[in-house]
């Protein structure tokens, strides 16, 4: 077993752990953390694939770097994941400030409110 395979297995385990946390942890912040765990697992798996794909480079004798395409995509994905985390965290903080709760469980459908197009 090589280190790369080991990392691949680690990525699989991270996805599983993150899924469990995202589903079973009641606190929304914990769900956000769990989402980041899944995300890092997916990125890590992509990194493993990049490293495996670098084999052709090693054969051609041009270096030991991995396949740059997955690496570039992981960078893109990391930035997107950060933006997602930022929105989620801000939403959660606002929710906690306005309704004093930090969880999603036990939501009821929105109570009858004078909705409609409220104009400023």
């Amino acid at each position, binding site marked *: 077993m090589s280190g790369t395979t080991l990392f691949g297995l680690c990525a699989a385990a991270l996805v599983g752990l993150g899924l469990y946390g995202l589903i079973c942890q009641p606190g929304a912040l914990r769900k956000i953390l769990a989402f980041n765990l899944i995300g890092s697992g997916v990125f890590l798996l992509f990194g493993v694939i990049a490293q495996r794909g670098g084999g052709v480079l090693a054969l051609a004798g041009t270096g*030991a770097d991995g396949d740059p395409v997955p690496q570039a995509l992981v960078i893109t994905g990391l930035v997107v994941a950060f933006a997602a985390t930022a929105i989620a965290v801000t939403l959660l903080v606002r929710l906690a*400030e*306005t*309704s*004093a*709760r930090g969880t999603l469980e*036990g939501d009821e459908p929105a109570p009858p409110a004078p909705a409609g197009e409220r104009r400023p």
Partner: protein
Amino acid sequence: MTAFLLGAAAFILGTVALGLVRILRGPGNADRMLAAQLLGTGGVAALLLLGVATGVGSVSEVGLLLALLAAFGSVAFVTGAGRASEAPAADSAAGTQGAARSEPE
């Protein structure tokens, strides 16, 4: 030489990882932060060792980034500490309302 450097990296990682027990045990959040801080420095050391051992280029720049941002956990900690103290005071009314709402339906 490579084997030695890798071994040293593993050793340093192992020792600072022992320090992670502080993350588990606490008792305070500051102690958890200390453990993360130690892991930060140890991680930089292990990173440099790994980089030199395996000949991956530009590792010192990754180390620079880590060292630059190492302080940020603690910055978040101290600023967060100030916030945690003010939040209940500002929202105490809402807090009781939330407690009533959190009963199982």
